């Protein structure tokens, strides 16, 4: 290792460091291009591979060429390579197995789970680096811990911890292991916690470093974890995609803090890139639901079950299986509007079967896809694609609405809030203003539903009481199965 002094700067030089930095530049370029390609349908899969290649490159070259400057000024490569490779292999096998075995319906919670892992990783790094840094500062006998490194460490721990705890709760909610806790008090608890977190970070920065005194870092970790839980707890299940996207960008920022700490450009660009694009993505998702981010975070959905006109003694009309079969067979245009119920019942293959069956009778069946149907944007597209439904059969919401007057029958399969007329008609409703599929404009509407339970927004749906609406109660899969065999027997 030699020190080079030019007119402008002094820096350490070795071939290894140069090679490592070049690999980081390549990795950053691959991340950027990967992300760019991920945002176009034709190149998306390819883009994912590019980003993965960048990641592999950065990991490999870090293990091979990274040098840490030790206290005595010497440079040392990565130690414990056996352990590191062991951990990489274990993590890869577990990650691969989980990711390959998970059902398509469970994808959202998987994203949340992996996001949490990244957050925990960032938090652990900070927890290891803090004692080391504090010992060094104590040796230097500085008055406070006021510097960029400690700020990066503390923020990395705070954001990583919140992201980890929040993601785990989001995972639990989507997996239906944890219910929503809604209480107005939580709002104030959350804000107080957030303030306490920041005050505590500032408190640590102003403290005089004492070697071996590490209680603050554990306290900060505990506070961050608690805040992560209380932050996600009141947010309704339907808003989880937005929350996961937000936590995703948090983890990006936590990773960038690590990059700042180690002066590591790959971590810095990768982390910030995800942080900013994740934030924009979060806002785009909110826009698709016509809601503000603040509205989502405060958890304005739910708790407002009084909203909407009182349903009183309105009654719904059921349709018999054979009537439904006849109605469908003698229609010309049928539209299926899928929702989360379709995903839960795994009924996408039966939808496709129904589509093929009706095609033999000259009935045209299409799918009306609401942008936020299911638990994630694009959820329905993925599910139906899995069942080999042709791309051109999937209709965007606007196209479906334009053709609604000419549609003979709409079949609503496990969707609720995305076909709720209250979004158009009732300004007092919590979903007022959200674009919906106007299934009530069709000539007939058949609604497949497990029960009269409310959707995720927890509001009444007047569609069920409309004169043209008919209910088919039961599990989506079983109902579709019966319907298909009924049509076959006609």
């Amino acid at each position, binding site marked *: 290792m030699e020190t080079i002094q030019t007119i402008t700067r002094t820096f350490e030089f070795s071939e290894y460091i140069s090679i490592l930095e070049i690999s980081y530049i390549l990795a950053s370029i691959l991340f950027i291009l990967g992300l760019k390609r991920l945002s176009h349908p034709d190149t998306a*899969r390819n883009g994912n591979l590019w980003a993965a290649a960048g990641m592999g490159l950065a990991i490999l070259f870090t293990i091979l060429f990274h040098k840490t400057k030790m206290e005595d000024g010497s440079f040392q490569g990565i130690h414990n390579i056996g352990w590191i490779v062991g951990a990489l292999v274990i993590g*890869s096998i577990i990650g691969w197995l989980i990711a390959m075995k998970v059902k398509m319906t469970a994808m959202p919670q998987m994203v949340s789970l992996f996001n949490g892992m990244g957050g925990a990783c960032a938090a652990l790094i900070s927890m290891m680096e803090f004692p080391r840094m504090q010992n060094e500062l104590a040796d230097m006998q500085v008055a406070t811990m006021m510097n960029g490194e400690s700020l990066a460490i503390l923020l990395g721990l705070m954001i990583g911890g919140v992201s980890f705890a929040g993601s785990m709760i989001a995972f639990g909610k989507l997996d239906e292991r944890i219910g929503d806790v809604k209480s107005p008090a939580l709002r104030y608890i959350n804000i107080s916690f957030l303030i306490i977190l920041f005050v505590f970070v500032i408190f640590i920065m102003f403290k005089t470093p004492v070697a071996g005194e590490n209680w603050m870092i554990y306290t900060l970790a505990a506070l961050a974890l608690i805040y992560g839980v209380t932050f996600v707890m009141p947010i309704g299940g339907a808003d989880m995609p937005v929350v*996961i996207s937000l936590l995703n960008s948090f983890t990006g920022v936590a990773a960038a803090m690590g990059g700042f700490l180690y002066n590591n450009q790959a971590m810095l*660009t990768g982390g910030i890139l995800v942080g900013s694009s994740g934030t*924009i993505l979060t806002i785009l998702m909110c826009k698709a639901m016509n809601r503000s981010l603040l509205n989502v975070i405060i958890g304005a959905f739910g708790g407002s079950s009084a909203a909407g006109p009182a349903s009183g003694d309105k009654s719904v009309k059921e349709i018999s299986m054979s009537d439904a079969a006849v109605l469908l067979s003698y229609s010309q245009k049928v539209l299926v509007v899928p929702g989360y119920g379709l995903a839960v019942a795994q009924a996408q293959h039966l939808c496709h079967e129904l589509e093929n069956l009706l095609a033999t009778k000259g009935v045209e069946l299409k799918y009306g896809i609401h942008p936020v149907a299911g638990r994630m944007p694009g959820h329905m597209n993925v599910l139906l694609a899995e069942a080999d439904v042709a791309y051109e059969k999937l209709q965007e919401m606007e196209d479906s609405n334009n053709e609604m007057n000419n549609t003979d029958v709409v079949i609503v399969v496990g969707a609720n809030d995305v076909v709720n007329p209250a979004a158009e008609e009732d300004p007092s409703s919590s979903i007022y203003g959200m674009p919906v599929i106007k299934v009530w404009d069709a000539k007939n509407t058949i609604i497949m539903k497990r029960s009269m339970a409310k959707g995720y927004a927890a509001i009444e749906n007047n569609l069920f009481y409309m004169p043209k609406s008919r209910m088919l109660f039961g599990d989506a899969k079983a109902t579709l199965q019966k319907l298909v065999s009924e049509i076959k027997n006609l």
Partner: protein
Amino acid sequence: MDEILKFFLEYREAIFIIILSIFLGIEVISHVPSVLHTPLMSGANAIHGVVIIGAIIVMGHADNVLSMILGFIAVILGTLNVVGGFVVTDRMLEMFKKKKKKQL
């Protein structure tokens, strides 16, 4: 005040990268169709797994049992994020590819 000014000078390169990356991140994905929101989120999720490099560095100079254990866990968690993230994204996008073929 002096502290803050010094801070900016000391870390000006990192601050530059951060600011430019923020704009880049916004620009790169601003025209994404809503169908791709989920895969894009998942792909970005895998990219922030780059935090694993930090875990490797920490592990690389760990010298006591506690930091060895924590580092080991951190590397495993980071790998889960990276590998799981990319594989899940690929599986999602595989679905999109299938229907592309059909169109041709």
